C-alpha cells in the first residue's frame, strides 16, 4: 500500500492503472459491445454519449461550487439558506441534476474543519464539483481519511492546529456533502467573482483551504 498521499504530479500511486494492456483490450471490447448493442437498438445515441462526456468534463466542475461558496461569503442571507437547505440554495444559482440531490453544506470555522469522503463507493456532488479526482475514488483515501484524518490532511499539505476539531463526513446516496471553506483573510474588498477564483476544488472537499489572495 502506498504511503504517500500527495495529489500532485505524476507520481501519485492512486493514478496507477490496475490492468495490463491485454486486460485493457478485453475491457475495451466489453464496453464497445455494450455500447454497440445499446446504440444499434436505439436505446441511446452516440451523440448523447458524446454530449454527456462533454458536459461532465467541461461544464460541470468546481467552478460551479466556487460560485456557491463565493456567494455565501458575500451574502449572509444566502449563507443561511445554503446551510439550511443546500440543494435548494445551490439550485438558486442554476446548479443541480444527477448526483446533486440531497446536498448538505458543512461550514469550516476557526475551531472546526470538515472533510468529505465516501467510504462505501464514491458519491460526489457532480453539479458543483465535477468528476471526482482519481484519489477520491481509491481505497487508500476512502479508508484512511476515516481512520487518520489529520495524517491524511497533512499529506495534502494541510497542517491543522491541535485545537481544531476535524469532522469527517461520509457521503452516501442519501446525503452528499460540500465543504464551505473559510473566507481567506485580506479579502474584505474582494467582489464575488474575485473571491470565486480563490475557491479550490480541494477546499470544497476539505483536503485544503481556499487560496490566499
Amino acid at each position: 500500500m502506498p504511503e504517500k498521499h500527495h495529489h500532485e504530479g505524476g507520481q501519485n500511486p492512486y493514478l496507477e492503472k490496475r490492468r495490463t494492456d491485454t486486460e485493457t483490450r478485453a475491457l475495451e471490447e466489453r464496453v464497445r459491445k455494450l455500447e454497440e448493442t445499446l446504440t444499434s437498438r436505439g436505446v441511446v445515441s452516440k451523440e448523447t454519449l458524446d454530449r454527456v462526456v462533454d458536459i461532465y468534463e467541461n461544464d460541470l466542475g468546481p467552478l460551479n461550487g466556487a460560485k456557491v461558496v463565493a456567494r455565501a461569503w458575500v451574502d449572509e442571507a444566502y449563507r443561511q439558506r445554503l446551510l439550511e437547505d443546500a440543494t435548494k440554495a445551490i439550485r438558486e444559482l442554476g446548479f443541480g441534476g444527477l448526483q446533486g440531490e440531497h446536498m448538505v453544506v458543512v461550514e469550516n470555522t476557526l475551531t472546526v474543519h470538515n472533510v468529505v469522503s465516501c467510504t462505501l463507493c464514491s458519491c460526489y456532488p457532480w453539479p458543483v464539483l465535477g468528476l471526482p479526482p482519481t484519489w477520491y475514488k481509491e481505497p487508500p483515501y476512502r479508508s484512511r481519511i476515516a481512520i487518520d484524518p489529520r495524517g491524511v490532511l497533512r499529506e495534502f499539505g494541510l497542517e491543522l492546529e491541535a485545537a481544531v476539531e476535524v469532522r469527517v463526513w461520509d457521503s452516501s446516496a442519501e446525503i452528499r456533502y460540500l465543504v464551505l471553506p473559510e473566507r481567506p483573510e485580506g479579502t474584505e474588498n474582494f467582489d464575488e467573482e474575485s473571491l470565486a477564483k480563490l475557491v479550490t476544488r480541494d477546499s470544497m472537499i476539505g483536503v485544503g483551504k481556499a487560496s490566499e489572495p
Partner: protein
Amino acid sequence: MSGIEALPRRSGELAFHDEWERRVFALGVALCEQGEFDWDDFRKHLVSSIAENGETLETVKSEGPGYYEHWLTALEKTLVEQRVFVSPESLCRSEKS
C-alpha cells in the same frame, strides 16, 4: 496564481485512464438520465461489485478491477435487471424498444 483558470475543470488529474472508461461512464449517466434505471439501483450494484472484490475499509487493494471496471459490471447487471436486455451479449430485442 491559482484562479479559475487553474482549477482542474478538465481534471488535470486523470479522471479517466482510458477511452473505454470515458465511454462506460457516459453510458451509465446517459441511460440513467433517460430513465432506463434509477440511480440508486445502479449504485447498489456498484457498491456490491467493489465489496465482492474484497475491498473494505481494512483491506485496501492496489490490484484487481479498477473503479470503472466496477462501474461496467454494475451497469451490465442493472441493465439486465431492468430488462433493457437479457444479457450483455444477447441480441434479443429490448423489451423497452
